[in-house]
């Protein structure tokens, strides 16, 4: 007897394909959601910058110099300013003002600057979200730095002639050093792998992986559980189909659908967001192994669950940590080492890494072969597990 009968696998695949085709509502969902999600997620992660943080500006100094600073900070895109009354004593009450930050220019600020003993600006910032707090402070510092630079330039311009005469007496070398000290020292920045520094290019594998994982695991998880629930599994088991033929046959139609969806998502990313894809054959291998691994996982959940409800519950509980810990949208380096070990268990982690290595780094196979191996091993283990669990029904 052959190890696998093509006809047997084809008949299961045919039946499974009919199930997908007949369930029009799910079919519609499966075909429309991935491109929609791609658009949604793509725009959501388009820029990594924080903009338009509602903020309160209280000007207690009310001098032309303070106004110059306000002109500068008003152009800062981080903030959406609203003006508070100068005598407001409650600038710290952020929620009452409906803002996340409040900046107070203290009375006598101008004078203190004139006297060379600058008073600090007062910044209240909502610390509940650490990222926002840091970004707001950084942004204020930047505007303040710009302001300071301008003030310095105008001070130098207005220096008395005597000072320039005195300066000319200094040796050239010292003068050059002195001038360079007044400027920012430069960095010659060359961004590699993502030259336009676009978040979308980084996030695309995350979007592809997430949507596919969601669909493949949940859809696949229902297939065997559904047969168990409706009693057809028993009928299936008494036919001369072998367990591996059932498992492979069930998986094939979903593999085709998923492969189609990968293509759709890539097309949307390319046409709408202008994301370019490189090394097609390598990308295809990465996607295929990831799909097999995800489908295997779904099958395993399916063979393990008694009902479809259980299958969905197991899927959701599995997928929840995956979303957060797989490095789909943020680098894994942010996570503590112990958690990163857990991340390595998720197929999505390896998929995202391999996909980025291929598409962004345009690296050779030696850089991502380990990830491919892990995905391949994952596919094998989950399939073997599903076959084993199906065998156990026969005990």
């Amino acid at each position: 007897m052959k190890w696998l009968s093509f006809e047997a696998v084809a008949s299961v695949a045919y039946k499974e394909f009919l199930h997908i085709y007949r369930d029009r509502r799910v079919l519609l969902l499966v075909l429309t959601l991935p491109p929609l999600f791609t658009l949604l997620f793509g725009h959501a992660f388009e820029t990594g910058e924080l903009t338009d943080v509602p903020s309160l500006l209280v000007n207690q100094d009310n001098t032309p110099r303070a106004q110059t600073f306000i002109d500068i900070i008003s152009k800062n895109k981080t903030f959406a300013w609203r003006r508070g009354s100068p005598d407001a004593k409650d600038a710290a009450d952020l929620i009452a003002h409906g803002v996340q930050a409040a900046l107070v220019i203290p009375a006598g600020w101008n004078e203190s600057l004139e006297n060379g003993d600058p008073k600090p600006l007062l910044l209240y910032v909502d610390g509940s979200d650490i990222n926002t707090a840091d970004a707001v402070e950084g942004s204020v510092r930047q505007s303040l730095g710009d302001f300071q630079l301008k003030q310095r330039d105008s001070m130098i311009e207005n220096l008395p002639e005597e000072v320039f005469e005195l300066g000319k007496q200094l040796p050239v070398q010292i003068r050059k050093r002195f001038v360079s000290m007044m400027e920012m020292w430069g960095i010659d920045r060359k961004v590699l792998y993502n030259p336009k520094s676009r978040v979308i290019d980084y996030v695309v594998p995350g979007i592809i992986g997430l949507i596919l994982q969601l669909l493949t695991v949940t859809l696949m998880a229902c297939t065997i559980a559904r047969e168990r629930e409706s009693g057809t599994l028993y009928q299936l088991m008494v036919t001369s189909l072998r367990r591996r033929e059932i498992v492979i046959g069930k998986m094939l139609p979903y593999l085709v659908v998923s492969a189609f969806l990968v293509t759709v998502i890539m097309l949307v990313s390319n046409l709408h967001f202008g994301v370019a894809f490189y090394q097609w054959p390598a990308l295809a291998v990465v996607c295929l192994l990831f799909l097999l691994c995800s489908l295997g996982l779904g099958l395993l959940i399916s063979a393990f669950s008694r009902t479809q409800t259980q299958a969905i519950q197991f899927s959701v509980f599995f997928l929840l940590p995956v979303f957060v810990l797989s490095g789909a949208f943020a680098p894994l380096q942010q996570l503590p080492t112990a958690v990163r070990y857990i991340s390595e268990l998720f197929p999505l982690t390896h998929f995202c890494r391999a996909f980025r290595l291929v598409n962004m780094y345009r690296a050779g196979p030696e850089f991502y072969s380990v990830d491919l191996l892990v995905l391949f091993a994952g596919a094998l283990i989950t399939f073997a597990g599903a076959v084993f669990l199906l065998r156990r029904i026969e005990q």
Partner: protein
Amino acid sequence: MNEPVIMLDHLSKSYGNVQAVRDLSLQIERGTIFGFLGPNGAGKTTTMRMLCGLTHPTGGRAAIEGAHVWRDRQEVRTKFGYVPQRFSLYPDLTVAENFRFFGGAYGVPGSELEQRIGRLLHVIDLEEKRNTAAQSLSGGMRQLLAIGCALIHDPRLLFFDEPTAGLDPVHRQQIWNLLYDLSNEGKTIFVTTHYMDEAERCTEVGFIEEGLLLAKAPPRALKSSFRSRLLEIDVEPLMPALVRLRGLPELLGVSLRSGGLRLYASEPEKLIARWREHWPFPDLRLLGERWVEPDMEDVFTAYSQGYHGVLTKIIP
């Protein structure tokens, strides 16, 4: 060639401490319609599961056409068709699609498949429903479709688990006629049921209770193992009479049938003679008495309750 189609040799199955099937030995010859009779939980389904290679026996052995049902289960599964009690085809697939799937699953060659589907659709009289989704069929039609699908690989043996449970009399008759046709074609049919009247339709019947085989014989032989006559009386009021008579030491049992009471007693002639002289229950009125032929239910009751007094011989 007189090799039995099904051979059970001291077959046992236990789940932990529970003995589902105990030391079951029987042989079923080719062309038999074998009715496997017993109450729910008697071990019918477990036996059938073992025969289908879905559960491994914990003791003894079973073979279908000489092939070991567990060790050679892959081979055995091609030899039989199985019709479960619960409708187990794919409701979203059409009649023809269900056929096509099972045909493929059993490895029926594609060139032959459509021809066979056509023939089977004719046999089960569903030609007009060819492209109807299985979920839109009536209960009887679904059962016919299930039988059709079980026949797609032309097996010589068919297992039916409660084939007519919940069906109307018309479809019940239609399904039994189909079974007779199949039997006539030389197929062996193994039916589980707890309907006694269905047992009468079989060519051979096995009684099972609590995992033990109580008897196995053709229905006629089983009935003739009963004492030739069974006493039935009409009494009023009926229910108090039933309760009172049940308590009598000289009666093994009482059962109510069509308004009369059937009395299982080892010496019914003496009993009725005594009652004719003196009726011992002043509050009950004896309206009539007659001798009746025992039916399968009487036989099953006698075997399962151990009323050996009413049996002339016990068929093992």
